[in-house]
């Protein structure tokens, strides 16, 4: 059956929600995080968002046309915008434009349409695109070139000042740098620009200890506190989604709970540089966006409540394991992709027992 036929049959009542409504709720729930991201890291995020959205809609339209489906009807479900937004959050704000472009291409074609479109995808498109980019362009994807955080010696530049915006544009569109009269020299700095967790793992705990010895608090500066504020705004958005019943509580609670549990179990005071504190695991990394927005993608997660609990526990433990014992930079997307593969099997195992199938219930009175 190539086309979805509508048949005249009960129920005739007006449906309570629409797909575009659901997607719009997700977009609205992401707005606090978008504001936060732009506030702390400059307009690089908005540039990425613009590129991914426009290109994503274009690709979607072309694919729908090629598949012989009504183009505007299917674009109207807004799911592409959600994917574009989530992908933009995952991309480094200062990455060149072609990173975002190839990312949305992978997300749309290989993440979604090769499986049959929205609802049929096995993997979360945004997570798939992010991991593919990480493998293909490791340097661009891990060096976070941020305006205003060149090094500690310089005074912090406001990323939303004219200078910061200009820098962001130059970072996203490298050809501007050659055209510009006064090229801005970008100083890539590992410590300043990677997420704290990556730093804890790879970049010499000695440097952190050194910084602390100099009286510098890691959480003082904008780009630092930015991570926590961002995680909190994702959590706020996720709670909005749960409140609006767009997602159920099962996956976020189990993912966060599992990360919290493991990081508490393995926590060693004095060894934060190696294993990280529970706070760091929850709020200084992408745990929140993963738990609330990526892992809860309905198409690639199991459908039953029990299945969702299993799925969340798996994601949480894989996430923590990759972080501590694995050698990949960001564990969230990878963990979700791995567990995405399991979700059909989880679905198979956790079939709901409907009423009348189980044993006769005893009368309670």
């Amino acid at each position, binding site marked *: 059956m190539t086309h979805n036929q509508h048949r005249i049959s*009960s129920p*005739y*009542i*007006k449906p309570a929600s629409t797909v575009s409504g659901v997607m719009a709720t997700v977009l609205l729930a992401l707005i606090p995080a978008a504001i936060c991201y732009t506030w702390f890291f400059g307009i690089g995020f908005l540039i990425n968002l613009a590129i991914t959205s426009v290109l994503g809609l274009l690709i979607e339209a072309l694919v729908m046309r090629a598949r012989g489906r009504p183009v505007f009807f299917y674009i109207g479900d807004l799911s592409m915008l959600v994917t574009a937004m989530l992908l933009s959050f995952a991309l480094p704000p200062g990455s060149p434009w072609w990173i975002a472009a190839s990312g949305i291409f992978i997300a749309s074609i290989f993440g979604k349409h090769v499986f049959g479109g929205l609802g049929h995808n096995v993997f979360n498109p945004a997570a798939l695109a992010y991991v593919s980019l990480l493998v293909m362009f490791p340097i661009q994807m891990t060096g976070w070139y941020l305006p205003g955080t060149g090094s500690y010696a310089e005074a912090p530049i406001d990323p939303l000042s004219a200078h910061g915006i200009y820098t962001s544009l130059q970072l996203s569109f490298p050809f501007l740098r050659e055209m510009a009269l006064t090229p801005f020299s970008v100083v890539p700095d590992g410590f300043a620009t990677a997420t704290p967790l990556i730093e804890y793992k790879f970049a010499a705990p000695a440097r952190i200890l050194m910084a602390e010895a100099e009286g510098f608090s890691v959480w003082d500066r904008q780009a630092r506190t930015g991570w926590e504020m961002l995680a909190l705004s994702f959590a706020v958005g996720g709670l909005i989604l749960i409140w609006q019943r767009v997602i159920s509580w099962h996956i976020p609670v189990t993912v966060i709970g599992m990360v919290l549990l493991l990081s508490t179990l393995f926590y060693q005071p004095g060894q934060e540089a190696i294993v990280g504190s529970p706070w760091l695991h929850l709020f200084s990394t992408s745990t929140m966006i993963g738990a609330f927005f990526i892992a809860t993608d*309905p198409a690639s997660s199991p459908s039953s409540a029990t299945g969702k609990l299993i799925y969340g526990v798996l994601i949480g433990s894989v996430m923590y394991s990759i972080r501590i014992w694995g050698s990949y930079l960001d564990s969230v997307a990878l963990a979700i992709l791995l567990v995405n593969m399991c979700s059909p099997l989880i679905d198979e195992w956790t079939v709901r027992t*409907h009423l009348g199938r189980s044993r*006769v*219930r005893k*009368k309670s009175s």
Partner: protein
Amino acid sequence: MSRIKRSFFIKKVIKPILFRLARKPGWLSPIHVLPGGIVPAPNKQVSLQHKIVGMPSTQLPLPSELILPLKQHQGDDAVPVVRPGQYVYKRQLIAAANGQRSVNLHAPTSGFISAIDYQLAAVNTKPQPGRPWQQTIDPRQTAIVLKTDGKDLIDPDLPLKPLLFTHWQQRTTDQLRQAVFDAGICGLGGAGFPTAIKLGACAIKTLIINGAECEPYISADEALMREHAVEIIEGARIIQTIVGAQVCVIGIEEDKLEAIEAIQSAIAGLEAANHPVSGLSVIKLALVPAIYPSGGEQQLIRIITGIQPMSGQRPSDVGVLCHSVATARAVFKAITDGEPLISRVTTVTGSALRNPVNVEVLIGTPVSHLLQFAGCDSAALERLLVGGPLMGYAVDDLETPVLKTSNCLLAASQQDIQSVDASSVPHRDCIRCDFCAPVCPVKLQPQTLYFLSRHQRHDSAVQNGILDCIECGACAAVCPSHIPLVAYYRDEKALIHHEADSGESSTWRALFEKHQQRQADNVVAVQQRKLEKLQHKLDSIAEGDNPAKDPLVESGSPTSHKSAEQIKREIEAAVARTRARKAELLSKADANKDGGQ
């Protein structure tokens, strides 16, 4: 939708518990939680502004013609016993039941029979065997057409039954059940199951009278409870006597305040009158949360008793019987008044009408007559539904008659229902959002069933319980992709039944037989329990003082004939034993009664 679902847990679980603890009237009997359900906007008040309009009356004259289909119920067609041109009186039998699983049809008013083989237009173009009695009238459906003469005469020669049945308590249960059968009563809640068959069930412990009319727009039962509460209670008492139920519970949705008050005062009146029916407990009132579909038979039984019949079982197999308030009233009228089922209360509502109202309408009245009465704005009329917006069916032909099962006519405009134009747009793909599973009252997984139905994987569909789907439409109502889920299920069920009948697929057939075997096993287990209960009951009766009761064992359950020979013999032996016991009991009971008089 989010707002609807958010109030759920509070409404379903916390509120009943709190109210029970606070000892609020009506909340005293414990209720159980129904899984799933939705809360659509009720829209019932518009049709409750006025009292029930009678027919014929000055406001609502008789239509010139009544169209009376021979099959308005579940079971075999009735057989016409009149000829064209014949004059019939009101209440006269015009089509006789064809065996026990059929119901009689009576003339709703006096007039001449103009045809007995009128071919009724099909309601749905595609016959859908899932619920044939509700979803469609078979295209070959024949009907008797009655030309009314406007005099509304009752046959003067007809013996007046009211005298006969004034003191119904003195009649035996067999006589009472026969009277119900003669009156041609079938379930008025929608399914149209012959009531006399239901009343023949044995070992019934709980009788539930269903006043939980959960579907939006429909207010017929509510209006009935407001205005005829005493008759309903009396009818419930009659049914309780017939089946010998120890407990009778009337389940009403909590938001029907006036109906609750009326029923409460009727129960109080009954207690005050102190009817001389021994051995029967008082009628209890149970308020249930106003959630769709808490008024479904199985759902209400689950809410009130906590009992869940297994797949393939009838509620009577687990000792529960459920009748709607409209059926209770019809039984009351048949027993005390001798009036067969010739009219019913129907809601005529919808935004396309100027005067939505509840009408006590004669069976067979063309829909157009009622729409005209209620002031139908044909420009605004988007679609005419018989039944509510969730489980009703659309009719195109305005000459379609009101049936015994038609509880509502919904002249829907665009603000009531999904626009007709939407049917020309393809629906979106399933995004697996899982909104549907939490609202399923049978705890099915609707999205899985959708994929299986769509790809016609019959075996998996049966394993996932598609045959237990009650087609309430809650899943489709919350589906953001607007997938007509129920239509898919109905098609799939039709295919499953079709293939099982024609034997097209041997693997599927084996699975279906397995399913039936399981159902049969259930039935066997139930029969066993039933017999044990019966034994217990007989023992207690043999000891002394219980009133006469008819413990007829029904061995003809539809699935039992499929079971293995040995099981069959066992049942038959058991039934024979029970029958012998019954005869003994009856003679004893008669002897007791004679002695008493």
